[in-house]
């Protein structure tokens, strides 16, 4: 942290002065070694890498020549641990996976001698195998537009100076001299819509809450209860750029409450995200110390404070009224609307809830202007969307793309396609509320309207790619097992509906399905959509309906022929080895967890059906497609 006086800033002028001081203490062209400290890179050893770099720099007496810092998530977790050399933006990946000491030594040597980057640590293009030096030239990043993630991987999330150096809290200062109604109008004009899934216009939501007839309090909540399995956008945003979210909340609170009622901020965050909680706690403390949160922000009449509430593990609490119940200390069950939270929410007071990504967009819109923001994206979906691109995909990680980009571009170009030369079969979006978009519809532009047209939804931004080895009935069953256990049980359609859908899907995957099952599934689904109390029950049938619509033949194969074409449903399959294709390598023998594969040296392998547990591990590891399913 820079050595600057840490007294609260008393005016926007003070903020600019401080920013200038931070910038002048950092000479242009200062070289930085930025190690990624996101959850993914930590799991791959980035903390050890950071320590090793620290040691090496000390040993080479070079600590004062380079700034070593730890950033939040860069998104390309597949290549973890990542290190970027600034300002050249040299991108090193998988650093220290094989040999930490030599990688670190080489890296520091290259820096000291101002020589060529370390070749072996550069990213290798998956197709032409060429080494790529710079961050922006890597296909995974080249097609992205980073608005929400523009600071991710560049700043140290635990150092507010880094955020200020990149213009942070400038939007808040700007807003404090505007009329609240004008701030709302700006957000409406930008066309920002809720990034949590439903896509409600953010400006309109704020206006509703501002207009509520109650002058005692406005609660402004950040929904960080990211419950969709397969999604980690919100976690990454908070871990890499927490001040963007806080600044967005402060701007929103000013627009909603200033001149009407006092405001209190709350971030409701999942307990499973300890690093995000820690990062956010530090950020709030730092912002308070500088007077960017708290009483009379930047000398104005506006006061706003933020508290953290940790969720306790219930998916349904992502629903606004359920979240409110849980903050009040009750079971997290939704209530019927009206009244909507904007009128009567937390403790009976007008409450505005937006998701993490929505809040992080707000300072950017104020900074760049509504027209700039509205020029990005498509139709009624403006700006960008952050997705977690995962599953059977070569480049998995966190991406941000303009709305309206086709799924195909995302999967093939950013994601680098499906591994092992297999075919993409479907892309699941929207988590348990979404659906499976089949490969035939890969040209669908990804925005609120188009994704909904094909029966899925944006959701919070999970994007799980499935290949021909993924069984769509099994996928539907997986999501129903999730919603069945997360259904709060309050309303009958959801409680009973999820149970019955799950039971029928289980029977189908176990070979006990009948010809009328699909019709029954559809009937139950329609009832649930119409009659459930909250979004959980209304959308829970989506995975079932979209897989029935797009993969009817797979359902038929299960119910009529007693087969699972993808080779997943154990009761319906048997693995054998193609004796002609088998190259007698030991991969499958080593991988088999129950030692069911035998074979003499240089003899084709074979599977003992008695011992085989049909896990499919052998098929995953075989590079020669020799494992057959029947």
């Amino acid at each position, binding site marked *: 942290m820079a050595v600057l006086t840490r007294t609260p800033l008393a005016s926007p002028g003070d903020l600019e002065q401080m920013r200038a001081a931070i910038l002048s203490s950092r000479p242009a062209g200062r070289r930085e070694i930025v190690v990624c400290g996101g*959850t993914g890179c930590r799991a*791959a050893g980035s903390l050890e890498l950071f320590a090793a770099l620290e040691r090496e720099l000390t040993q080479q007496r070079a600590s004062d020549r380079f700034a070593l810092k730890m950033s939040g998530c860069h998104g390309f977790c597949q290549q973890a641990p990542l290190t970027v050399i600034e300002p050249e933006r040299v991108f090193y990946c998988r650093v220290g996976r094989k040999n930490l000491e030599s990688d670190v030594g080489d890296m520091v040597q290259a820096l000291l001698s101002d020589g060529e980057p370390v070749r072996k640590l550069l990213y290798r293009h998956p197709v032409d195998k060429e080494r790529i030096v710079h961050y922006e030239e890597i296909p995974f990043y080249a097609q992205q537009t980073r608005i929400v993630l523009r600071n991710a991987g560049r700043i140290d999330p635990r150092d507010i100076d880094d955020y200020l150096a990149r213009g942070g809290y400038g939007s808040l200062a700007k807003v404090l001299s505007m009329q609240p109604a004008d701030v709302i109008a700006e957000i409406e004009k930008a066309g920002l819509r809720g990034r949590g899934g439903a896509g409600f216009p953010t400006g309109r939501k704020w206006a509703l809450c501002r207009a509520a007839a109650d002058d005692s309090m406005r609660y402004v909540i950040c929904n960080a209860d990211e419950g969709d399995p*397969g999604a980690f956008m919100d976690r990454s945003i908070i871990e890499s750029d927490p001040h963007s979210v806080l600044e967005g909340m402060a701007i929103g609170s000013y627009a909603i409450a200033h001149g009407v009622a006092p405001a209190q901020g709350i971030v409701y965050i999942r307990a499973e995200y300890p690093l995000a909680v820690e990062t956010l706690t530090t950020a709030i403390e730092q912002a308070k110390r500088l007077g960017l949160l708290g009483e009379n922000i930047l000398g104005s009449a506006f006061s706003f404070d933020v508290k953290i509430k940790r969720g306790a593990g219930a998916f349904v609490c992502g629903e606004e009224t359920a979240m409110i119940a*849980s903050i009040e200390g009750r079971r997290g069950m939704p209530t019927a609307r009206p009244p909507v939270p904007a009128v009567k929410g937390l403790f009976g007071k007008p409450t505005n809830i937006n998701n993490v990504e929505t809040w992080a967009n707000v300072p950017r819109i104020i900074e760049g202007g509504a027209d700039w923001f509205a020029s990005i994206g498509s139709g009624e979906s403006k700006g960008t969307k952050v997705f977690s691109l995962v*599953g059977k995909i070569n480049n*998995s990680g966190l991406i941000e793309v303009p709305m309206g980009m086709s799924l195909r571009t995302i999967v093939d170009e950013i994601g680098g396609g499906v591994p092992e030369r297999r075919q993409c079969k479907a892309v699941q979006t929207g988590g348990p509320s979404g659906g499976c978009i089949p490969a035939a519809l890969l040209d669908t532009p990804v925005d609120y309207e188009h994704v909904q047209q094909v029966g899925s939804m944006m959701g919070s931004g999970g994007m799980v790619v499935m290949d021909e080895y993924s069984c769509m009935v099994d996928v539907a069953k997986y999501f129903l097992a999730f919603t069945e256990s997360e259904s709060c049980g309050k309303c009958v359609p959801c409680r009973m509906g999820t149970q019955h859908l799950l039971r029928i899907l289980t029977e189908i995957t176990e070979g006990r399905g009948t010809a009328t099952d699909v019709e029954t599934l559809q009937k139950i689904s329609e009832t649930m959509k119409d009659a459930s109390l909250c979004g959980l029950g209304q959308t829970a049938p989506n995975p079932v309906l979209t897989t029935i619509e797009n993969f009817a033949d797979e359902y038929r194969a299960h119910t009529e022929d007693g087969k699972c074409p993808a080779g997943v449903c154990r009761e319906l399959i048997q693995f054998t080895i193609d004796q002609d294709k088998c190259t007698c390598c030991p991969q499958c023998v080593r*991988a088999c967890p129950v030692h069911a594969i035998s074979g003499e040296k240089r003899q084709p392998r074979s599977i003992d059906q008695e011992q085989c547990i049909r896990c499919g591990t052998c098929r995953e590891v075989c590079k020669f497609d020799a494992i057959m399913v029947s």
Partner: protein
Amino acid sequence: MAPVARETDIVRLLSAYDRARQNLIPILQDVQEQLGFLSQDAVGAIAEHLQISENDLFGVATFFTQFRFTPPGRHCIKVCQGTACHVRGSGLIMEELSQKLGIHAGETTSDREFSLERVACFGSCALAPVVVIDDKVHGLLTPKSADELVDEMGSRRDETVSEA
């Protein structure tokens, strides 16, 4: 693993919270962090502090998956069941570990060494399938490598025992 707190610690902990209903979940989280679980005594003390019935308290605590009412094992193994983990074979990992330890998800081995839990999603999907052991994330696992991880934990225990 969480340090074992005494009853007096619980009393001290409760005194930091005023008696408002909205403090219930933060208190439960705090107590569980101290004790490792919600003991019968702790439940009684919390209910009394907030002046709500134990029944009411259980209603809330059982609603959320975070809370447990039996002591956890020395090592806590959490298997991620997220979508990305699922399509990359987390079910097999759960099965393997369940068989190895002889317990189902949600249970603790009789020697109190290991607890096995399923978690909806850790948000480390790019590393799927993921297992978290004592808050350390292990990614890109197979049933076999997960098995070996647990063996490592076990052998570390043997060392500490023999040293003692």
